[in-house]
């Protein structure tokens, strides 16, 4: 549904997006991860046709967005970062405007028969009002639909922006930090909504909150300094990249560790990282990728005359994978 091929975008001398390529298939929710300045927002702007790439191609359902921008954009719903909206309009008026601009244009631009029929159906005034009301209910803004957007809280504005992205039932949804202004209950509801949307549309969600990506996304693309440093479904991404960065193990010795043991363990070949775990007396150890599993810890305990009280392999979290990938130089 979304096909990105060798896309580059620079602002002056700064290369914000550098030869990015990936494909997103239909009916999947994909997370776009990356630290600040990684190029996430620029990439989302390229995918939605707000910006055109300096090089490379963005295809939306096979349509080059730089060549046929209106046709490609008719398939996309977009929630920009910080949900910018017209403060003078009410949520109802905004949704009415976006629906009119999107549904009518979709019909005029010769979208698929189903889309045309949807467009025509939505054009019928009564059907249009019902449709807008259903979206208002879906995103939970019924109680503020007649107030001006300028008087709404950030959380409500964010939900209005999501409503505007959903209003024309797009095939592709691009959401830039969709829960950044929501409270925990609203965040939970929004995640539920995003998961539901993934049943019908291709959804791309950017977020700094890794738990959010893990909670709602089946796939992830990790960006660092404008380049893709990891992509795939989250389970295999976590597995493969954990293998690449070394196994993590929780270990406890008897007697408990002291400074001498920490110094000796740190200098032991095969140990990449070492961190005492608070209040448990255990140590969190990350082995070198080529280390022979926990054997290195057995050998260390024997050499130091310690008993192994606990040895527990840990599953690498997305957060650790993200931290390692984005803390270092771009991987080849």
């Amino acid at each position, binding site marked *: 549904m979304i096909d990105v091929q060798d896309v580059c975008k620079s602002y002056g001398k700064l290369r914000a997006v550098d030869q990015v390529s990936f494909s997103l298939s239909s009916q999947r929710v994909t997370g776009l991860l990356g630290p600040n300045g990684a190029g996430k927002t620029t990439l989302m702007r390229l995918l939605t046709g707000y910006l*055109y790439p300096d090089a490379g191609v963005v295809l939306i359902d096979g349509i080059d967005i730089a060549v046929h*921008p209106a046709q490609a954009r008719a398939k996309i719903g*977009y929630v920009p970062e910080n949900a910018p909206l017209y403060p*003078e309009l009410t949520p109802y008026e905004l949704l009415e405007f976006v629906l009119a601009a*999107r549904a009518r244009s979709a019909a005029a631009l010769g979208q698929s028969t189903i889309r045309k029929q949807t467009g025509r159906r939505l054009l019928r005034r009564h059907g249009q009002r019902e449709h807008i009301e259903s979206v208002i209910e879906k995103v939970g803004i019924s109680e503020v639909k007649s107030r001006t957007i300028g008087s709404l809280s950030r959380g409500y504005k964010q939900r209005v922006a999501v409503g505007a992205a959903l209003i024309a039932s797009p095939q592709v949804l691009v959401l830039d930090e969709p829960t950044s202004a929501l409270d925990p209950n609203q965040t939970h509801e929004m995640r539920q909504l995003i998961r539901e949307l993934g049943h019908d549309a291709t959804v791309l969600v950017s977020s700094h909150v890794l738990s959010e990506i893990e909670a709602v996304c089946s796939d992830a693309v990790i960006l660092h300094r404008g380049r893709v440093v990891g992509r795939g479904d989250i389970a295999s991404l976590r597995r493969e990249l954990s293998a690449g960065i070394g196994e993590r193990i929780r270990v406890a010795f008897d007697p408990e560790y002291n400074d001498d043991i920490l110094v000796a363990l740190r200098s032991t070949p095969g140990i990449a990282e070492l961190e005492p775990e608070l209040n448990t007396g255990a140590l969190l150890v990350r082995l070198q990728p080529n280390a022979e599993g926990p054997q290195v810890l057995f050998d260390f305990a024997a050499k130091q005359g310690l008993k192994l009280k606990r040895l527990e392999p840990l599953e690498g979290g997305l957060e650790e994978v993200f931290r390692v990938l984005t803390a270092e130089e771009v991987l080849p």
Partner: protein
Amino acid sequence: MNGLLALTRKELRIQFSSPPMYIATAFLLSAAAMWFFLVHGFLARDTATLRGYFAAMPLLLVLVIPALTMKGWAEEYRLGTSELLLTLPLRSVELVVGKYLGTMLIVLCMLLLTLPVAFLLMPLGEFDLGQIVTEYIGTILISGTAVALGLFISVLCTNQSTAFTGAAGLLLVLTLIGRLEVLISLPGPLAGVLRYVSLDTHFDGFVRGVLDFRALWYYLWLTSLCLYLTAVVLEARRRA
């Protein structure tokens, strides 16, 4: 086409909820009336013509039109709503024309509010109805060009105050440039060029009751050029 109308309606809604529109309307109506009755001295003259009323329009529009167009594109970029607008399935030309039509409808509403002046004065003498019609046509044409110029300046700016200052400055120059030869002596061809470029020079004929097709062509050409350049800048910003 329908997307364009949706955008026009959105622009109208935003303009009607924006204080500068009401301030500009009040300024236009009161300043034109004060000029006509107090400075021009219509009641003291024994002539049944609104020529003095409309002659003031080009200078008044120098302040009124930028107040309407300053938000146009500059505010879209400042608020970030350009991301919402420019990712709609509308072509750049539709976006530009939609915004233009929205602002022009506001200008037409303003001009409608000047009609009572004409209706109230007409029983006082034998006014030339044809002349009043050409005066309105001229005012609509010069306003249309000023709106297109104002929106073009707005797309080049990222805040409304710069857009207002830029548009007002440009309109002032284009309005007065034709009269420069009154102040300083200019070579004949240069004076001719400046007269041709001036918005005010072309407006004179309409005020005198002449439907000048060369002036009509000038306003339509300049309006189209500004709208085209606005669309070019929008596209260039996508590639910047």
